[in-house]
Structure formats: C-alpha cells, structure tokens
C-alpha cells in the first residue's frame, strides 16, 4: 500500500515537471502523461541552456528549493529531475 502511494507521488511529480517543461518550452502535441519521462532533454529534445534555466527557475518556485547551476548536468530527463527535486525535499 505504501509503495503504491510512493509510486503515485512520483508519477504526480514527474507529470508536474513535464507540464512545466511543456509550458515553458511551448511544446505542442504532447501532454504531461504522454511525455516520455526518460527522453534526454538536451540530446533528444534539443533544449539549450537558456531554456533549461527558464525551466529551473520555475521549478525552484514550484517546490521552494534552490537548484545550483552546477547541478544542471544532473537534470537530464523528467524522471531524473523529479528524483533530484524529491531528494532536495527530503
């Protein structure tokens, strides 16, 4: 039961992260649910440093955390971003 709750929480955070990325990058034809959570944002989606920064600034607001610029390389995909945020919240 507890594991299921954690899974739902992770999925919820991943979807919210995906939603922020979709909104900030103005992506079309994709929803938070359909967004591939393992898609490499730089190599496969092709986002650049300025776009990633814009996403990071919104994530900082959303979760009241500070993300260091040196940590950008860790933010490779939605799944890893959600895990990064979860670690900071813990």
């Amino acid at each position: 039961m507890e594991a299921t709750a954690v899974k739902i929480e992770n999925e919820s955070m991943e979807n919210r992260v995906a939603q922020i990325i979709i909104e900030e990058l103005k992506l079309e034809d994709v929803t938070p649910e359909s967004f591939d959570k393992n898609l490499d944002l730089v190599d496969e989606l092709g986002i650049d440093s300025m776009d990633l920064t814009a996403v990071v600034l919104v994530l900082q607001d959303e979760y009241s955390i500070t993300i260091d610029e040196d940590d950008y390389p860790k933010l490779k995909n939605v799944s890893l971003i959600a895990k990064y945020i979860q670690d900071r919240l813990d």
Partner: protein
Amino acid sequence: MSGPAQATRAEVLNFSTHPTKGQRWKFSQLLEDESVRHRWEKVRKYFFLRESTYDMSNRCNIRCDGCYYFEGDKQFARENRKTEAWRTLMRQEKARGITYVVLAGAEPALVPELLRVCFEEMPLGSIATNGVKFIPKSVGYKIHISVWGNDETSRKIRRAKDLLVRQMDNYAGDERAVFVFTYTRENINEAQEVVELLASNDFKVTFNMFSSTLGYDGPLRHDDRSLLATRKSMLDLLRLYPQNVLFSPYSALAHTHTRGLHSLFKCPYPRMNPSTHIGLGRSFRQYRTDLNWDREVACCVPDTDCEDCRHYAAGSAVVTARLHGHAKDPEHFKAWLDYVDTYLAVWVMGYEKSENLQTKLVPPPGFELAPAW
C-alpha cells in the same frame, strides 16, 4: 475626519509576499512587474539562437595594432574560397543546431561570394568588418563596423586614411549597420566626437572594449583609471544619444569592471569551459579559413587574454548565459534584461531596442562596483 489612507491591495500583497532583505526572490515575483514580464517575453523568443563563428579570409585591407586575428596560429590557415565547401559547411552547421553565424576575421568584405552563400543557407548572423569595402545588400546580416577613434587615431593605429568618412559613406541609410566604437586606453576622449558625428548621420552605435591579445602590454591595454573614464564616457553618451547608442547602464558596468568578463561571469566558451553538457561548451565552434576548428582555442575572440577580455562579442554570450545568477532580485534581473535587449538589438536584424529598465548602476551578482564609482 478620515483616518490614515488604507494600503492598496498591491501594497498589501507586496508586503506580504516579497522577500525580506537577503532572501531570494521567486522568479514569479520578478515577473509580477508588467514591464519586466513584457521584456522577458520579448527576449526569450530569441533563446533559440545558437552561434558559431567563422574566419572568412586570412587577408585584410588594413592592419591595426592589437588585432586579434593576426595573433596565434589561425592567421596561417589556408583560405578555402570554394563557395560549395562553405555551402556544405553551413548546411552541416544547421544540421547540428547552429542558428546564428558570426562572420569575422580577417576582413570578410574581401570575400562577398562566401558571405552570400552563408546568408543563403543561414538567415541570421552578423559580419565584423572594418567598413572600408561595402558588403552587398544581398547579404542581409547585421554589419558591425569597427571604429577605434577619430580619423587621426585611425590613421595612426590602423594605417587607414579618412576611415570614418569612408565607413559612413559606404553604409549611409543601411539598416544593417551598427558602428562599434572600441575604447582603448588612449581614445576615450574621442568617443564623444565620433558618436556625435555618427548620431548626426542617424547611425546606430554600440561600444566595445579593447581586450588585449595574449602577451600584449602596449598602450591600448586598459587600466583601472581608463576603465573608470570609459564607464563615465559610455554612460554620458548613452544619456546624450539614447536613440542612437545601443547600450545599457549594466552593459557599461559589466564591460568596465576591474575584473574581466570571465572572472565576473565564468566564460562558457569551450576555451574556458571543459563541459560539453549544454550551451556554448557543447555547440560553439570557431572555424578558421580552412574550415577546421579546434575546441581548445574556441571562443569568439581567439588569442585574447582571457583575464583582460571585456570584448562586446564575448559579453553578448557570457553575460546573457548567466540568467540563473541574475534572476535573484528585481535589480539584477532588470539589468540582465537590459543587457540582453541590447545584445539582440546589436546582433539581430529587425530587433528593436526598448528603453532600459534599470537606470541604476548594479554590480554583477556577488561583486562590488569596481573601480569604485
């Protein structure tokens, strides 16, 4: 009799939600100011720009003291003048995500056929030229015309006669043209007459800082005193000619700080940045005239002494890339927006500069004003 005026809703909200001194502002709070949000939306449309630079020719029709091109190995690269080779290169560049080209060294105007091919393949870019030879209108890039002082100074350090007059004649009424006045330690007092002349002829002008090439310790190199005098001159000219001078108070501060751009903002160009994860460290290349490039020396002004680098082209990328560090409070964020708005107006055809949001002198994040103002 009425009591004290009631605080407005906005005042109450400001009081209750904005951070106290020392706390970090939320990004959403920075965007509550309508003029800031509007400027943010204006500049972020250009986040897709990804630049690389290209030496077009190993020849120049003048020879200037302290020229970055004629330092180091790149000047000895063989010229590739085959238009199809350049077309292929531009297509390859586009395929790897480059959206903006800077055509420079030694003098691009000497190879107009190559400029035309680049423009046909890559619609956004700029050309750094001395302005002696006109670049055909069919090349629709921004054209940055270098000015190193009045004509007397140009004759001395560029060995070019009546240079400013020739430059202005060539580019009269040309919307591509932006004059780039390079401040050296010795020409600060000439900026006023040059900018006045350019403004009276309806030209746009921006400012550059002489940045020493490696090993250069000659009379053009800035010192603290000349940095301060340059900053004052830049701010005076910005105030006097707001319609013609493309600059901002923060641009003036960032480029005349005692510390160079790398020290202030951590240069993201490959030469100083080993990371290939994202941004310039990943995508930027500096091609020589033989169409080869070398990551170890890749930056927008190769062979410049990084400690002394205050170059306008460098700043356009170095300061702009530091959005994260500037989005910490309204003062720094407005200063950053002005800087980016300036950079886009200088480098992108059709982009119009807006009024600066930040009129105060704000030091770069984590630093003091230096030299002291």
